[in-house]
């Protein structure tokens, strides 16, 4: 029994479709060149010197006490942030799904919290943390009269990262809790268990794998985070910042490469654990859809403390965001609270604000449609087509999710500054806007691909088959059937890519040349200098841009989206 003839025929059919073959070839080339190659060159760099293969670079790097400390620091922060975010996320999700919220106000709070991580640049909270609790922080200095409070360091990073990442856990846990069939808990209640007992013996065990999943996702985000430790870390260095300093401060490219390899190994390990072990497990027990609406908890002794706790946390997060535009409007933060527009004026007059916004905006605007289209093409190929290189394409585009920006940045420096494999090939790319656009694309590709894949899985396979059967080739099928059917996913991918690009910093900061001014790099620079007024003014405008982008997307989806036309009914 051999399947040679069908394999042979499938190959013939595959090559009868030149557009698809070309697309796949281009995709493979792109993924190899801009994801695999930069990572491979890091390995080569750190293991191979002029004298041949060696471990000396690693030995040297591991000998540095500050690097060893950075490893433990990073892991400590990641661990704490992971646990705290997962638990707070669970709390929010539980309250939303299980508890009757009496006021509209609470519902609004929850919505804002789930929305914030989408629109905010990742390091905004560090700024406001310093402005609220730092030496001249409003709360510490004026409310509590503490004049020497230090927010820099472990606790600063941990709190800021937790507040930044927990909304993601909240959304993940919400999805899981909604899928629990209420009759499971009702049965336990009926058999005499108290509410607490039900939570501990039914609800919690059911979502435990999901909680672990949320923990790992946050853990990876935390150890890959560059901007927050940079701004609020002080002398508390994490891997991302140490690598950055190693290459920008000490010009030690081999050392930085080796460090990047270490960071990559940690995130990869976590990623594989998350992807192949917990992700599958977290939904396996909860495959059943809730059959009936859940009886919400109305018992005041439960609802009061829970909703007060959630409100306080949510208000705190919102306060921190509000503090950013005010930081840009006060004359001198912490000393002089007269309103002024001088920071905004300075941004544009003295610090070339317009150019910064133009550069960031245009580069992101170019990157986002390419990202959205690429991720839809990848999703289409992965979900709907059968071919040999499919596994490769899927794996590499998902791999990008586990690669911290700093690692990618170092990889690009090593991989492209002297051309591919130091041959000078593609050397012209380095230092241009094009390489920044490519970084934007690579950084946003996994998110877009993931949403595209889940959108496509909802679509009956025979719809595309029918178009194929009526005479359309792959290209036509994709353009006239697939893309229109996942228009929503495409649009949101477009905006997500735009927002992620315009707020990106970790890889970009290593690759940007003076020719381009990017908003995030500016914010980072001024925040580090302590020029919070300017940093806040930049950040405020950035938030305004990303928020309008999201609003625009929602508007477009509402009026032109797929759901309106036919998905209902």
């Amino acid at each position, binding site marked *: 029994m051999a*399947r040679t003839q069908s394999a042979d025929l499938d190959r013939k*059919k595959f090559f009868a479709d030149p557009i698809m073959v070309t697309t796949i070839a281009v995709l493979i080339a792109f993924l190899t060149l801009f994801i695999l190659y930069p990572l491979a060159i890091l390995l080569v760099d750190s293991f191979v010197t002029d004298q041949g293969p060696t471990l000396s670079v690693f030995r040297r790097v591991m000998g540095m006490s500050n690097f060893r400390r950075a490893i433990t620091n990073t892991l400590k922060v990641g661990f704490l942030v992971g646990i705290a975010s997962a638990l707070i996320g669970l709390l929010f999700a539980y309250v939303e799904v299980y508890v009757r919220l009496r006021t509209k106000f609470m519902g609004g709070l929850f919505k804002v919290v789930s929305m914030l991580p989408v629109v905010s640049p990742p390091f905004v909270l560090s700024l406001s943390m310093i402005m609220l609790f730092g030496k001249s922080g409003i709360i510490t200095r004026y409310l509590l009269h503490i004049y020497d409070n230090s927010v820099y360091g472990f606790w600063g990073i941990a709190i800021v990262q937790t507040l930044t990442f927990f909304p993601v856990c909240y959304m993940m846990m919400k999805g899981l809790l909604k899928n629990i069939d209420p009759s499971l808990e009702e049965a336990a209640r009926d058999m005499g268990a108290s509410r607490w007992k039900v939570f501990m013996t039914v609800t919690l065990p059911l979502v435990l794998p999901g909680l672990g999943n949320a923990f790992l996702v946050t853990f990876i985000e935390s150890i890959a985070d560059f901007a927050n430790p940079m701004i609020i870390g002080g002398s508390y260095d994490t891997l991302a910042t140490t690598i950055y300093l190693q290459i920008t401060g000490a010009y030690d490219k081999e050392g930085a490469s080796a460090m990047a390899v270490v960071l990559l190994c940690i995130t990869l390990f976590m990623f594989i654990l998350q992807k192949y072990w917990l992700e599958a497990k977290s939904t396996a027990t909860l495959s059943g859809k809730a059959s009936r609406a859940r009886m919400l908890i109305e018992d005041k002794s439960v609802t009061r403390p829970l909703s007060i706790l959630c409100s306080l946390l949510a208000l705190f997060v919102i306060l921190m965001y509000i503090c950013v535009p005010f930081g840009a409007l006060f004359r001198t933060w912490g000393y002089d609270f007269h309103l002024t527009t001088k920071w905004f004026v300075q941004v544009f007059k003295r610090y070339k604000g317009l150019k910064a916004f133009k550069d960031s905006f245009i580069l992101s605007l170019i990157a986002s449609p390419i990202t959205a289209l690429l991720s839809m093409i990848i999703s289409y190929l992965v979900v709907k087509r059968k071919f040999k290189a499919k596994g490769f394409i899927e794996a590499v585009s998902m791999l990008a999710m586990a690669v911290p920006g700093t690692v990618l940045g170092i990889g690009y420096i090593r991989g492209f500054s002297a051309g591919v494999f130091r041959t000078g090939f593609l050397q012209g790319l380095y230092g241009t806007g094009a390489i920044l656009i490519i970084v934007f694309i690579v950084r946003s590709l996994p998110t877009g691909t993931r949403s595209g894949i889940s959108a496509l899985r909802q679509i*009956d396979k*025979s719809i595309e088959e*029918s*178009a194929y059967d*009526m005479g359309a080739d792959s290209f036509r099928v994709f353009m006239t059937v697939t893309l229109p059917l996942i228009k929503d996913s495409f649009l949101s991918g477009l905006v997500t890519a735009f927002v992620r690009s315009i707020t990106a910093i970790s890889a970009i900061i290593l690759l940007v040349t003076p020719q381009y001014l990017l908003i995030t790099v500016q914010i980072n620079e001024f925040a580090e200098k302590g020029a919070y007024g300017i940093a806040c003014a930049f950040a405020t405008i950035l938030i305004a841009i990303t928020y309008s982008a999201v609003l625009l997307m929602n508007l477009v989806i509402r009026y032109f989206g797929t759901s309106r036309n036919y998905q209902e*009914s």
Partner: protein
Amino acid sequence: MAKEKKGVRLEHISKIYQDPKTKKDFYAVKDTSLDIEPGSFVTLLGPSGCGKTTTLRMIAGFESPDEGEIYLGGEPINALTPNKRDTAMVFQSYALLPHYNIFDNVAYGLKLRKLDKAEIKEKVTNILKLVGLEGMEARMTNQLSGGQQQRVALARALVLEPGVLLFDEPLSNLDAKLRVSMRTEIRRIQQEAGITAVYVTHDQSEAMAISDKIIIMEKGVVAQMGTPQEIYYHPTSEFVADFIGEANFLRGKMVSRNGSEGVADVNGSKVELSGLTGPQKAGDDCTLVLRPEAAVVADEGQLPCKVILSCFMGSYQNYHVMVGDTQVKVTDFNPKNKKIYEVGDEAFVKFDPESVHVL
């Protein structure tokens, strides 16, 4: 209407799949040869997993055969992609393009063939009239009932005037009544269009109502081919007899055989048989296939029995009786003025000698 009716020929076709659990290869379709004549309506019938859909998808080009060659109108088509084959398929889930209206759905394939606008409009209008959807061109697919969606799917395939029309269980998503009226419709339209059709279903009454020829498949191989009558009255195996219609199997032994006449011993009773076609001779074991509607329960008959179930069904009286150790179903139609036997009654199963088929 079709440009050219085409025949379909499968020569020793096999398709091998890998079991996802055991990782072992198995034949989904094995050494199947078919010859479907131009203009005929042929149904592939069988339980799920018998290879009927795989066979259809190989004709359409979605799957590639591992052995053998498929011919469409005399041309080998193994290496052609679905979009290059002169076939059009009607899918189980209809697979209408939800972002297009009815007109655009039907015009989709014509546009790909670069016909001019006026011609497309004319063809679409005509075909919609044929399937009874005139005036609905501007509707979106979700504004249609299941039956109407089915008609659009049919129109969309017909308008391409394909050499052969393929149906993959097209009626299985409709309710029972609509299924019956749609299958008559499909048959009418196929006859009017004069097109070759290959139809896949697991519903035997659908297959009988619609087909010129039925091909019954079992575990990847063809169990029997023939007209509905041939298959119903002269099944070649117990599987076929049981799958198409209801059947009682009575084990017995040939006592004598003389051409098409013979006598069998069933449970100690002598049963006269006529119209025999099989190879059985005196002394051979044999199985009598008796359709429930071909027998009645009576005071006298061939086989003594005991009634274990007697149930009034309106148009017939439903009996289960024991003939020795064998349970036999009998449906006695129009029971109004007949004697009704109750549970526990001793009686006989009575039938005409020629309505028994012997295996």
